[in-house]
């Protein structure tokens, strides 16, 4: 029975960590939206900056993936 409380804690922790994935979504949306508003102001400069866009999205997304990883670790590995 004492193991069940630990398991409960794992699942709660995993659920909390999954919130981080949602915040990563906010971050990615922020990057993409700002890129778009900048690109619409100056469309000629936008084409050269798509690589930067992807890098920014990747960085924002990586942290969400970290949160997801923590959730997975709590679910399965601990």
């Amino acid at each position, binding site marked *: 029975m004492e*193991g*069940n409380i630990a*398991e409960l804690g794992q699942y709660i922790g995993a659920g909390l960590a999954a919130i981080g994935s949602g915040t990563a979504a906010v971050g990615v949306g922020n990057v993409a939206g700002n890129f778009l508003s900048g690109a619409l102001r100056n469309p000629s400069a936008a084409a050269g900056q798509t690589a930067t866009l992807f890098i920014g999205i990747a960085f924002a997304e990586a942290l969400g993936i970290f949160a997801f990883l923590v959730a*997975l*670790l709590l*679910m*399965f*590995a601990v």
Partner: protein
Amino acid sequence: MISLLQEAATTAAEHTEEAAEAAAHGSESASGLPQLDFSTFPNQIFWLIVTLAVLYWVLSRIALPRIAAVLSDRQGAITGDLMAAEEFKQKAKEAEAAYDKALADARAEAQKIVEANRAEIQKELDAAVAHADAEIGARAAESEKRIREIRDSAANDAREVARDVTAELVSSFGGSVDQSAIDSAVETRLKGALQ
């Protein structure tokens, strides 16, 4: 729905039992996440390195040089074609210039011929006109001469008639007819009338 929940509950129960079991003997699957099963790491890394080495060899030795060659060939072909097209364009331009020149020459020639013809025709025309003028002059002179003759003969006739009439008149009035006096009188009178 309730049966589903029950099933889920039994599953969960089995699940925990099995988890406990797995943790109990915990040999091959130490952790639940396959990614963190370190016993498979040497295997994956070994085969990955083999694959990457083979791929790198294939790409750097065969595939990439070949694609680069194809791309540069194409670039060369395109440049060559463009140059050829430029050359053809130049040739076409020259041909057009030659054509234009020929056309202009032909036009000038035609102009010249037309000019020459016109001059000849003008000359003929002039000659004909001169001839006609001469003929007309001759005819006119002849007509004039005849008119003069007619007029002269008419004057002589008139003089004759006047002289005869005068002589008749003088003799009927009882005068002696002086021929010479009559002549001179008629001459002086007629001079004014016949002019």
